[in-house]
């Protein structure tokens, strides 16, 4: 458990000292959301109706954008090789990276969502539901993203490939996430589906990703 915590702590320290990646991601998230009104017009009722979908799309894109940095630097400087040979199972290391990546991408996006809610004319209740849906759904997005990043890490030109592989697999998350926001009365089923999806994919992801990492280096 110590080693697991150390991996999470290492990722967080790297992000805190290494640069403004997280801030860039938040900036990207807010900018995508803020660009939409220019495309569909500033009408407040239209915006309020579309806002949950826009927030979800912005979060979706922000999560995909951050994928490449998950394993890339570790692959380049040899850390991945050490993790593979370490006493801690590679699955646990991947799980640590999953937790750290969620803390570094989903949490900042979640924290920035009130800003987008104001810009897109959402009321408090609908923002609350969107934030809850993001909180429940982003673990699944991160889990699928980790698999995509692990599969493409041994490729030099894999930057665009991971999002292309991950996007279709993430469609259920988007469907249940938006459904949970859209239907206040009937949101129970969507909420349960979304939570189930997150739990199962987070439990399953470390094994698939670690398998891909091992196979990629043979």
């Amino acid at each position: 458990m110590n080693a697991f915590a150390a991996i999470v702590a290492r990722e967080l320290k790297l992000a805190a000292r290494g640069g403004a990646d997280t801030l860039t991601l938040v900036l990207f998230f807010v900018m995508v959301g803020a660009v939409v009104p220019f495309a569909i017009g500033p009408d407040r009722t239209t915006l309020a109706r579309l806002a949950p979908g826009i927030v979800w799309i912005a979060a979706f894109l922000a999560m995909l954008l951050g994928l490449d940095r998950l394993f890339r630097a570790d692959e380049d400087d040899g850390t991945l090789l050490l993790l593979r040979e370490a006493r801690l199972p590679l699955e646990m290391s991947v799980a640590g990276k999953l937790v750290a990546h969620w803390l570094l991408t989903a949490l900042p996006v979640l924290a920035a969502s009130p800003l987008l809610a104001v810009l897109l004319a959402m009321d408090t209740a609908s923002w609350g539901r969107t934030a809850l849906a993001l909180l429940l759904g982003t673990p699944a997005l991160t889990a699928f993203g980790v698999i995509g990043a692990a599969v493409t890490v041994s490729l030099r030109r894999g930057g665009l490939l991971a999002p292309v592989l991950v996007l279709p697999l993430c469609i259920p998350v988007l469907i249940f996430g938006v459904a949970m926001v859209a239907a206040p009365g009937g949101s129970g089923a969507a909420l349960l589906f979304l939570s189930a999806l997150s739990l199962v994919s987070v439990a399953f992801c470390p094994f698939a990703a670690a398998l891909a990492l091992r196979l990629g280096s043979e």
Partner: protein
Amino acid sequence: MTIDSAAPKPNWFSRLAHPGNFMGWSRPVLWPLGIATALLFGLGLWFALFNSPADYQMGETVRIMYVHVPNAWLSQFVYGAMFVAALGTLVWRHPLADVAQKAAAPLGATFTALALFSGALWGRPTWGTFWEWDGRMTSTLVLLFIYLGIIALWRAFDDPLRAGRIVAVVTLVGALDIPVIKLSVDWWNTLHQPESILTASGPKMPGSILTPLFVMMAAFTLLFLLLQLVSMRTEILKRRAETLSRQAAARPA
């Protein structure tokens, strides 16, 4: 006693699946399989075009079904075949499973695209639109995206062995996710007619339509097997040619 006789005797499947044996037995199979496919297509098309009734609502356009349904069936069947081949790659590290996976991906993508295309042509006169965001159509579209992603991944690797193993992981994850996608999309929106061949109370269509449909499905399935065998043979020959040219380059002049 030699080492050879101590080793367990290979069963019929591993003998069939040995790449050298595969090249041996698959060549004489191709012609009969091709002829059987052509005959079934001839019979099926004759049934479909001349010897089956027009629908009382849809009229003659119902005949698109005889192309649409087999393609839709194959779009899922080929993914199943890829899933089995992926297991073969990951569990038994079988070289032929690799080749089967690689050959099946473009075939599956083509059948899926044809199912969408024929569905669009059928939807225009009957529903009045080429495309509708209905549950089944959407999940077929997502399936096409998954096929295309897998093909893109195959093409990104230089080393076919490593590519096969990595793609196998993606194929397995996709296979686990496809039922979830189907469930979520069905839940999201549904317009397409419900399942009408495999229901608990038997088929809901008259025999005059079912017979040509089954003949066409058999014909398309044989076509897939034929194309799969041909492209597997091509892939094996391609790998052999690459090995030979590498050996030739390594030899001192």
